[in-house]
C-alpha cells in the first residue's frame, strides 16, 4: 500500500510536503520542484546512519527501535509507548508474547523495523532553513533552503530520545526539541564542524544535562550502611565482585552540542514558542498528563512562569495564531478546544468539538486533535475574520471556527473531506487551504493514494466560507513517474500505524494490582 502525504509546511511560495521519509517541494500551484529522499539504505540497515558523510555525529547509533508486529487491540502499544523503557523488562507480559519477542529477535528483524516517517516539518522565519524530524530513528534533519524549493541537507543529529515536536527560537539560531522522555533540548540550528569532539565533556558539564558524567571506574553507590536487608547486602557483595565487568556498560550520549533546558515527568507532545513584546519569548510545552507549561526563553528556560491547567485528557496540539500572539489554542483527547491567555495561565474559553464531530458521525464518542491551524485570509475591506481549523484523528472533516476578539471560538463550518485529513496548511498568497489526507477506500482500491492525497480549499469572502475545490485542484503536476509512490509495497497495517498515532496517548485507566 502506498503512503499519502502526511505533513505539510508552507514557506513563502513554496510548499513542502512529506510522504513517508521523503520531502517534496512544490509551488503553490502544486507544480513539482524537487525532492529530498530519505537515505535509501536506511530501509534495511537502520544502523547504517553513521556512514553518512554529511554529519553522522554519533559513531555508534543504536539500531532503530523494534516494535510489535502482531496486530493489537490498540491500547496495549499505547501503554507501552508511554512507559519509558525502564518498565519494559517487567515480567508482566504473557508467555505468548515473550515467545513472539524471541522469535523476532532471531528472525524477522527487517519486518519489524519502523518506517522512516517524517513526523514534523519546520521552517525558520526567514525561510532559509527547513528542519524535519523522523521518529523511528530519533533524528533531527536540518536543510538549507535556497528559497526556490531546493533543499540541501546540512546535518542529521540523532537525539538521545525520540523527538515529538520541535520549535525554533525567534532568532532562528536554536532548535528546541521536545522528546518522548519529557525533556526539551536546545540544539544550535547549524551543526558546527568546529566543535571538536573533546569539548563534548566540557559542554555537557557546563549545561545541566541529566547525567553528570559516569565515571570510568564504576563504584557502587550503595554501601553497607545504606542497605539493610540480607538480599540487598548479598547483591552489593556480588556487585563488588563483578566490578570489572561493569565498566563495559556504556551509555550512548550524542557528541554534538545539546543543552537540557527543561523537562516534564511525562511524554511531551507539543512545543511552541510564544513572544511577548519585542524581545521576550516563552517556551510552551504540552504533555500527555494534561499539562501545558509556560517557561521563559533561553537562558532562563529553567524558570516556570505558569501553567495552563484544565485539560482532562492528554494535550496533543498547541497553536498560537500569528495575528493573536497573546492567545494559545490547545487540543488533545478532550471533547473541547481550549483557548488560553497563556501569559496569565488563564482559560479564556472552551469550545465543544466532539459535538460537531457527532453531527457528522454520531457513533464517535472520543476524539484526538491532531492539528490546529490559525489563519486570516486577506480581504479587500481590511481584516477578515481569524479562522481556526481543527483536525481530529480518523475524522474525515475539517472543523472551522472563528476566533473572536474575546478569545472565544465560534463554530462556523464543518467541511467533510473525502478521506481523513492528516495535515492542513494555509497558502497566504491565494487565500487557500492545502489539505493532506489519507484518501478514502475507493481511492485506495484504485491505487490513487498519492495522487488523491492533496486537496485545496478556497475561501469565498462573500459568504465567509470555505469550499473544497475539485479533485483536479489537488493534483500534483510534473511529479517524476518514479516518485509516484503508489507502487510502494507496504502493508495496510504499517500505513495505519504510521499515520495514526495520537489516540494511543489516551490513558487506559487499568492499573496493575498494587
Amino acid at each position, binding site marked *: 500500500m502506498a503512503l499519502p502525504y502526511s505533513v505539510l509546511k508552507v514557506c513563502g511560495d513554496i510548499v513542502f510536503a512529506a510522504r513517508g521519509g521523503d520531502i517534496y517541494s512544490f509551488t503553490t500551484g502544486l507544480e513539482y520542484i524537487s525532492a529530498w529522499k530519505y537515505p535509501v539504505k536506511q530501509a534495511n540497515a537502520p544502523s547504517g546512519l553513521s556512514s553518512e558523510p554529511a554529519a553522522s555525529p554519533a559513531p555508534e547509533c543504536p539500531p532503530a527501535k523494534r516494535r510489535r508486529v502482531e496486530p493489537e487491540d490498540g491500547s496495549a502499544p499505547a501503554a507501552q509507548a508511554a512507559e519509558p523503557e525502564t*518498565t519494559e523488562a517487567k515480567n508482566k507480559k504473557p508467555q505468548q508474547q515473550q515467545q513472539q519477542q524471541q522469535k523476532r529477535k532471531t528472525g524477522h528483524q527487517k519486518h519489524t523495523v519502523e518506517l522512516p516517517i517524517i513526523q514534523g516539518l519546520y521552517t525558520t522565519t526567514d525561510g532559509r532553513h527547513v528542519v524535519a524530524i523522523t521518529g523511528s530513528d530519533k533524528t533531527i534533519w536540518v536543510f538549507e533552503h535556497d528559497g526556490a524549493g531546493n533543499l540541501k541537507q546540512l546535518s542529521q543529529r540523532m537525539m538521545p530520545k525520540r523527538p515529538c515536536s520541535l520549535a525554533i527560537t525567534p532568532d532562528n539560531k536554536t532548535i528546541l526539541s521536545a522528546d518522548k522522555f519529557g525533556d526539551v533540548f536546545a540544539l544550535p540550528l547549524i551543526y558546527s564542524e568546529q566543535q571538536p569532539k573533546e569539548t563534548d565533556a566540557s559542554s555537557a558539564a557546563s549545561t545541566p544535562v541529566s547525567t553528570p558524567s559516569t565515571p570510568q571506574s564504576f563504584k557502587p553507590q550503595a554501601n553497607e*550502611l*545504606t542497605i539493610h536487608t540480607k538480599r540487598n547486602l548479598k547483591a552489593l557483595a556480588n556487585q563488588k565482585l563483578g566490578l570489572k565487568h561493569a565498566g563495559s556498560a556504556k551509555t550512548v550520549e550524542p557528541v554534538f552540542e545539546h543543552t537540557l533546558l527543561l*523537562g516534564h515527568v511525562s511524554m511531551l507532545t507539543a512545543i511552541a514558542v510564544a513572544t511577548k513584546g519585542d524581545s521576550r519569548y516563552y517556551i510552551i510545552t504540552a504533555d500527555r498528563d494534561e499539562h501545558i507549561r509556560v517557561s521563559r526563553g533561553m537562558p*532562563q528556560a529553567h524558570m516556570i512562569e505558569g501553567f495552563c491547567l*484544565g485539560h482532562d485528557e492528554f494535550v496533543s496540539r498547541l497553536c498560537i495564531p500569528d495575528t493573536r500572539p497573546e492567545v494559545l489554542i490547545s487540543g488533545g483527547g478532550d471533547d473541547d478546544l481550549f483557548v488560553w491567555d497563556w501569559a496569565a495561565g488563564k482559560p479564556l474559553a472552551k469550545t465543544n468539538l466532539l459535538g460537531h464531530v457527532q453531527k457528522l458521525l454520531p457513533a464517535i464518542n472520543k476524539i484526538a486533535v491532531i492539528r490546529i491551524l490559525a489563519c486570516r485570509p486577506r480581504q479587500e475591506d481590511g481584516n477578515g475574520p481569524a479562522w481556526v481549523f481543527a483536525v481530529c484523528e480518523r475524522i474525515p472533516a475539517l472543523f472551522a471556527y472563528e476566533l473572536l476578539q474575546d478569545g472565544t471560538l465560534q463554530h462556523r463550518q464543518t467541511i467533510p473531506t473525502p478521506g481523513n485529513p492528516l495535515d492542513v496548511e494555509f497558502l497566504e498568497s491565494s487565500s487557500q487551504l492545502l489539505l493532506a489526507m489519507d484518501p478514502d477506500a475507493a481511492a485506495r482500491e484504485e491505487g490513487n493514494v498519492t495522487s488523491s492525497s492533496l486537496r485545496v480549499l478556497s475561501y469565498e469572502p462573500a459568504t465567509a466560507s470555505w469550499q473544497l475545490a475539485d479533485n483536479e485542484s489537488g493534483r500534483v503536476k510534473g511529479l517524476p513517474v518514479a516518485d509516484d509512490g503508489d507502487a510502494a509495497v507496504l502493508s495496510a497495517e504499517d500505513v495505519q500505524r504510521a499515520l495514526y498515532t495520537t489516540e494511543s496517548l489516551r490513558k487506559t*485507566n487499568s492499573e496493575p494490582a498494587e
Partner: protein
Amino acid sequence: MTALKNKRQKREEYRAAIQQDDGATELPRKKFYRQRAHANPFSDHQLIYPPSPDHMDWSSLYPDYVVPEEEDASPAEGQDASAKEDEASLADKPPRRLTQDVEVADIGCGFGGLLIALAPVMPQTLILGLEIRVSVTQYVQDRIKVLRQQNAASPLPQKPYSNIACLRANTMKFLPNFFRKAQLSKIFICFPDPHFKVRKHKQRIVSATLNSEYAYVLRPGGVVYTITDVPDLHEWMVGHFAKHLSFERLTTEEEDADPCVAIMRTETEEGKKVERHSGAKFVACFRRKEELPYEGEVGDVKMLE
C-alpha cells in the same frame, strides 16, 4: 496461598475497622499497611488529582479550617461574576475554601513521622504529606484520624493534628495540579528512593528539570529540605540544586538554627532506622531565591550569577 489470602483478609478487615471506628484511640499498626518500597513514577497509576489548584477540594483533609458556608457564599459569587463563564459542572459548585492555604509539603512522606512531629511545632500552618503508595497513604490517613480523635477534647482553638493531612499523589507529575505558584514556604524531601542504577536516575525526585517545579511552587525565601543516608544521592541533590539558578544552599549555621532540620533528622521513620543501623545522615537545605528579572534578549547568553 491460603496464608497469603489470610493476610490480605486480615489487612482489609483491620483497615475497615479503623475506617469505621470514629472513637478509635489506638494508633494503627504498620504491619497491616506494608507495601513495596518502590513505585514507578512514570506509569499511569489510577491517581486522583485536580485539573488545577483551583479545583482542589481541601475541605475533607482539613475540616477544621474550612470557611463556614455563610461566609463562603459572597466571595464565591464575586468570583463567578469575574471569571469567564465556564459551563463545566465544576464551576457550578466550586470547592469549599479554606481559611488559609497549605504551606508545607512533605514529598514522599512515607509513614508520616515527619508530619506528626511537625504538627505541634507549626500549629498555625497547614502541612500536607504526599505519598505515592496506596497502603502507606492509607496508614498515614488512619494515623492522623486516630490522633485527631485522641485530641478531640483539647481546649485549644485549633485542635492538635488538625493542621496535617496526607494525600496519595505522584508529585513528580502532578505537583502543579495541587499548588499555585509561590504557595509553599517549605518542601521536605526526606530519604527519597536513591535509584542507584544510572538508567533509573531520571526517576530520582531531585533533578535539574524537577527543581524548576519546586522553584515554581515555592515562594521566594522558601526552603527545600533534603536528607538522605546515601552519600552519592546527597551529592546528586546538592549538585542539581546548586546548578539551578533559582536556589542557593543554606549555610551550616542556618541549617543548625532551623528547628525543622533537627526534626527531620530524628523524627522520620527512615531517620530512626538509619540511627538503629548507626548510618550517616546527610542534610542539605536550599533557599528559593528572589524571582530574577526576565533576561532573554534574543541571543543573549550572558551567564547569571
